[in-house]
């Protein structure tokens, strides 16, 4: 089976600093790939390049076999196929929830209002927020806003969804409701690229774990193998930090650790 997404010898610089170094990564249609790695290793940059928010500095990047780094790539077209959700749910503050959801389908995709509206409402219902359709973002909790941001991307009917630490800015009690939505998408067979620091979630949702360090992919494996038997010293160190947290004595307040 050919890959839906294909990074090949992919490089990215910020000034003199090379933040992605000859990255090779293939993602098949319907696959759920979780990218792990220490802070600053280039996870966000990798996702942002796939969405055209950062420009590449060499190598190949293909979506459905089509080279995206060729001149003349219509990134607006690509972004409709590749949805992205960020850490801090940037909903449009001056628009109601429904207007946030409909902006792309109506203005970018020029779809019929009744059809787009039906889809938006169905998706809202699916994430349990249909009753919030007329609310403004600031009236919603972080977890609710993040679920709506996910729905906003889904309303474009993308082929792939990119999630960049979408629960990192949330209060612990709201993390679950957002992760459940992502898990639902994975179960439906959507292609997902997920950056997260939630190890238990990564283990549960991923078909494959990609471990990055300093701009390189150091290892890729199925989650069970990766978590129980990491191949590289860097990955072992990385995982030890998390298992250290989990193994702390129970007396510590649980909230600070989760």
């Amino acid at each position, binding site marked *: 089976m050919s890959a839906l997404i294909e990074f090949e010898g992919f490089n990215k610089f910020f000034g003199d600093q090379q933040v992605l170094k000859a990255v090779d990564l293939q993602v098949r249609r319907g696959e759920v790939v979780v990218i792990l790695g220490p802070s600053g290793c280039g996870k966000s940059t990798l996702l942002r390049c796939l*969405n*055209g*928010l950062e420009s590449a500095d060499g190598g190949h990047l293909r979506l459905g076999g089509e080279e995206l780094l060729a001149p003349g790539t219509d990134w*607006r*077209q690509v*972004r*409709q196929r590749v*949805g*992205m959700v*960020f850490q*801090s749910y*940037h*909903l*449009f*503050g*001056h*628009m*109601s929830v429904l207007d946030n959801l409909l*902006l*792309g389908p109506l*203005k*970018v*995709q020029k779809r019929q209002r009744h059809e787009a509206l039906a889809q938006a409402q169905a998706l809202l219902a699916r994430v349990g927020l249909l009753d919030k359709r007329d*609310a*403004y*973002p*600031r*009236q919603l909790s972080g977890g609710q806003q993040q679920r709506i*941001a996910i729905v*906003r*991307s889904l309303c*474009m009917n993308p082929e792939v969804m990119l999630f960049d630490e979408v629960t990192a800015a949330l209060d612990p009690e709201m993390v679950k409701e957002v992760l459940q939505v992502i898990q639902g998408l994975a179960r439906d067979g959507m292609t997902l690229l997920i950056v997260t620091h939630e190890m238990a979630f990564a283990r549960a949702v991923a078909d494959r774990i990609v471990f990055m360090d300093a701009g390189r992919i150091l290892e890729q494996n199925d989650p069970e193998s990766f978590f129980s038997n990491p191949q590289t010293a860097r990955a072992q160190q990385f995982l030890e930090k998390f298992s250290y947290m989990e193994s702390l004595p129970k007396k510590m307040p649980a909230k600070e650790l989760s």
Partner: protein
Amino acid sequence: MSFDVAFILSTLPAFLKAVGVTLQVGLIAIVTSLLVALVNAAILVYRTPYLQRVVQLYVELARNTPLLIQLFFVYFALPSLGLKISGFAAAIITMTFLGGAYLTEVLRAGVEAVPRAQLESGRSIGLSEAQLLWHVILPQAGLLSLPSLFANFVFLLKETTVVSAVAVPEILYTTKSYIALYYKTYEMLAVLTLICVLLFLPLSLLLRYLEGRLQHGQFGS
């Protein structure tokens, strides 16, 4: 010296008309200034080469020369170049020249206050730059700059009195005409003061109210 109430009453229709002229000049100038400012702000925000310099020069020039001199230049100097224009047209052009410069700065600051993250999430659903400007940046920038926009509208409306100098029959010109004709200085100044209070005070209060509301920010409150 007596205070001639009957005379005041007899001038009221003329003053009513004058208020109409003041509002007309002010409102037209506000709209045209906004249009000029929108174009300029876009040039500044997108850092359009060369044009950006022109806009910066214009803003400095317009804000650092007195309105009266700008007005005389348009009204007296342009005709000598073969461009003959009415006092009303000169008034609108000059007010737009001044207002456009102030509003350019207001809009630019507003646009720059919109978080970059908003632009990224707009782009990530495939909005074009124009759509981003229209649906995301301008509404938010407008909201952020609403108090200073409104303050500048009030400022422009007040500045309309300057155009009395080129015989536009607005409130100050009407006052001066009556004083010149009938020497009813106190009465006419009293009327002018009253008009100014009635016209500008409510606007200032509205401005204060707006600022109060916007401090708590935004929509859905």
